[in-house]
């Protein structure tokens, strides 16, 4: 599918997989892939299928958003044999120009521009290239790709990766006239896999993706039928801005690599040019602390010197990084997304102002859906998102989960056993957006528990919770009122009938009058006062059994 810049690995957050790959240039990509399946999302056959769809869909959504196109995605999964599937993923993105097709889909490029930070959907390590490689390694079949940028031609070709030389090989390249001026990418893969429709499934992933991206139209043609996720808004979120890293958030390894590849002539201009919030005097302070000469060539800095530099960068007082680089889902879109996929009675969404952890800007959003057809029994469902991508695995070790469990949900009218998820017909959506999502592990499925992050998530939940609480209370009140009315309405005919028997007066007018009184509701007393008695019969012994029977 459309690679965003048509060049190299996605520039985004955690590069762990590629970091490792950097040191493995000598061995084949196939061997690299085998050794790092767990980092790449291919550790088992069912997860592999989900990962492939994820890579495709994330890539397409990023491409469409970059190009300002309302996404139209189609995912087809067809079962060919017991463990053999064909997956076709198609989008209406900007497509890929002919010159860059091989690189976009085939070559694993390592060591790209790490030092530019921009919020984007995280990739499972190798992105779409990993999916192509997985297909090739399990079935030996090439990927079939169609793409056009909307010009006169549609390109169709097959692509294999030369796993020894790490080179894409394009074959059977044909072109066809593009009368409809179609643009986009379609990738067809044949893979070995296991298809499930349980919790961690393509279904669930697409449903949650549809919630986070209500401006996307997604059609899923799976082995068990077609599912459509409709577009309910034409508003797309604002475009995320690219920013330079802030010194507080940089890791030593990346700093070293940045210095090796920078075009800056000396360390001082390197600091000022490649980092945000570093001016001349800040750079001088950092260098003085690190005991480094300003004129040193960045490439000449030894590792122990780099370590000193890294430490000094953390010690100097700097302005927090700019936060306008974050693109939140926005409250409107979250509510929109929840309403679209969940039948509830109440929806609320909160977008927090941006904040900063370790020099990295981030923004937290929370959405709640309550009541309606949501399951009233059992724990609430938690939908975690990082940069609009649903996180389906490792829920228990995620900062989002921790924050949700730390909130006292009883204050908002829900049940909760201590330190657990709230119980009730509730879906909790938490979106964490950042230029650098601190995933806990290679799998990129759980967010690290930074106190700043947990605090912000909790504040957002509490804000949303207060809205929920008034709804829950008013709902409960009206339900109780209704039950009360029904109670009196059940008794009224019997009372009226008894009064008729007692007095000989017609029951009908009595019944009508009592019913009118129920409707007026003014007289109804709710306190369970035991008939205004102060004392119960506790002083009375078993005496009554005999005496009064």
């Amino acid at each position: 599918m459309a690679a965003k810049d048509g060049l190299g690995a996605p520039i985004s957050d955690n590069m762990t997989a590629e970091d490792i790959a950097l040191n493995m240039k000598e061995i084949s990509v196939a061997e690299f892939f085998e050794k790092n399946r767990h980092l790449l999302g291919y550790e088992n056959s069912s997860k592999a299928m989900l990962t492939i769809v994820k890579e495709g869909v994330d890539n397409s959504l990023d491409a469409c958003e970059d190009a300002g196109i309302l996404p139209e995605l189609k995912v087809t999964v067809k079962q060919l044999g017991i463990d053999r599937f064909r997956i076709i993923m198609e989008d209406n993105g900007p497509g890929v120009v002919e010159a860059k097709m091989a690189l976009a889909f085939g070559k694993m490029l390592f060591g790209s521009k790490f030092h530019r930070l921009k919020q984007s959907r995280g990739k499972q390590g190798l992105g779409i290239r990993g999916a192509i490689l997985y297909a090739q390694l399990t079935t030996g079949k090439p990927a079939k790709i169609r793409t056009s940028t909307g010009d006169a031609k549609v390109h169709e070709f097959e692509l294999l990766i030369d796993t020894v030389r790490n080179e894409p090989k394009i074959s059977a390249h044909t072109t066809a006239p593009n009368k409809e001026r179609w643009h986009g990418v379609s990738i067809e893969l044949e893979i070995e896999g296991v298809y499930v429709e349980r919790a961690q499934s393509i279904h669930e992933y697409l449903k949650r993706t549809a919630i986070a991206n209500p401006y996307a139209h997604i059609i899923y043609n799976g082995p068990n039928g077609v599912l459509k996720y409709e577009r309910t808004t034409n508003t797309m979120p604002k475009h995320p801005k690219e920013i330079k890293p802030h010194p507080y958030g940089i890791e030593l390894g990346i700093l070293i690599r940045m210095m090796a590849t920078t075009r800056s002539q000396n360390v001082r201009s390197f600091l000022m040019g490649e980092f945000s919030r570093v001016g001349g005097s800040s750079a001088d302070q950092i260098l003085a602390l690190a005991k480094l000469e300003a004129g040193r060539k960045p490439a000449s800095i030894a590792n122990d010197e780099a370590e000193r530099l890294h430490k000094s960068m953390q010690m100097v007082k700097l302005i927090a990084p700019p936060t306008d680089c974050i693109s939140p889902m926005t409250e409107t879109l979250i509510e929109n997304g929840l309403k679209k996929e969940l039948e509830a009675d109440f929806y609320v969404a909160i977008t927090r102002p941006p904040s900063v952890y370790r020099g990295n800007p981030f923004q937290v959003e929370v959405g709640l859906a309550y009541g309606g057809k949501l399951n009233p029994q059992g724990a609430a469902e938690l939908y975690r998102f990082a940069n609009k991508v649903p996180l389906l695995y490792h829920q228990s070790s995620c900062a989002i989960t921790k924050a949700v469990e730390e909130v006292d949900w009883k204050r908002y009218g829900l049940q909760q056993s201590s330190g657990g998820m709230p119980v009730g017909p509730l879906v909790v959506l938490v979106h964490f957006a950042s230029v650098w999502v601190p995933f806990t592990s290679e799998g990129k499925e759980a967010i690290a528990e930074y106190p700043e992050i947990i605090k912000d998530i909790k504040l957002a939940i509490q804000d949303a919770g207060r809205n929920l609480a008034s709804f829950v209370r008013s709902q409960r009140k009206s339900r109780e009122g209704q039950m009360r009315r029904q109670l009196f309405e059940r008794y009224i005919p019997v009372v009226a009938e008894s009064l008729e028997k007692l007095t000989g007066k017609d029951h009908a007018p009595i019944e009508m009058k009592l019913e009118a009184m129920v409707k007026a509701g003014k007289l109804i007393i709710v306190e369970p006062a035991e008939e205004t008695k102060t004392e119960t019969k506790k002083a009375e012994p078993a005496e009554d059994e005999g005496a009064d029977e």
Partner: protein
Amino acid sequence: MAERNPKEKLVKMGNDIIKEVDAKENPKIEIPIRSLSNIIYNDKSKSLSIGDKTSKRFFFNVAHAKKFMQTTMVAAFCKELIEGKIHTNLRDMFYNLKRTLKDSEENTFDEQSESDPIVVDIEVALDMLREQLHLGADVRGRVVGNVSIVDRGDVVNWGKLGSGGWAIPSIVEEITFKSVDAKFILVIEKNAAFERLHEDKFWQKHNCIIITTQGQAARGCRRLIQRLSAEFKLPVYVFCDSDPYGWYIYSVIKFGSMSLAHQSDRLGTPNARYIGLTVSDIEEFGLDKFTIRAKDVDIKRAKDMMKYEWFQAPEWQKELKLLVDKKKKAELEALSGRGLRFMTEEYLPKKIKNKDFLP
């Protein structure tokens, strides 16, 4: 007692409710409270009576509504009984009124234990006896003695009914006494002791009437004791287990009960005396081997009773305190430990001769 007849009272109760409905007020039924806080003990007349505290049962109160409905049902049921000249009992009434409410799974009454107290509510609220509502009370208690009565036209001699004696009916208003030849009445809590005394011809030897209450005295039994005592000036001696339960049986016979305090003047026998057993008896008659350890509930009950105004006599305070201290109870059967005829031949004669009674 009844200025108006029972049917009129029931009709008025219904009309009062309808008046409130017409006035758009919360319909209510006012019921005197039958608990210790509203029980007045009159030391002069030696009887319990009910105070003027009442509770209001409102229809438009979530906690009262169902009971309100049940009360109107029972009242209507009784009115129809009176009109139809039918007598029945509490169990039949329960089955007659129990049904499932329309469009629900809720029953008018689930258990008889729900309908029984409603009858007492109406009795107290309208100051009536359930017999007047055509509801029979429990039939319990038997009597033997040199007494002839007329009951529904039949002449019955209590001394000529074999081993069983005469079963006391729930209503004894209508019976008339033809001849009563006795010096006192002995009321016995337990059937076994009654049968022992009957077989041993105690009532013939001592020229008395013996009555067993078979546990807590039923109303018919209480009313009969009162009538005999009042109409023939007979002393009444009550013979119960030495434990709080037995002593309370005595106090109900003598002073009346809390739940029927409004009827004490008809049911209480203020001149009754307590003959035994007592904790003091255990030592005096060598019954220690045959005692039972008092349970926590017995101790608690004894402590409660020590506070009742009608148990303030020093003799009773002493017995209650002894029980709390020694934690010992004795049943009437304990006397059999001393020999099967010990009770007939030694214990009771000695007590009566020495006038060894508790007030």
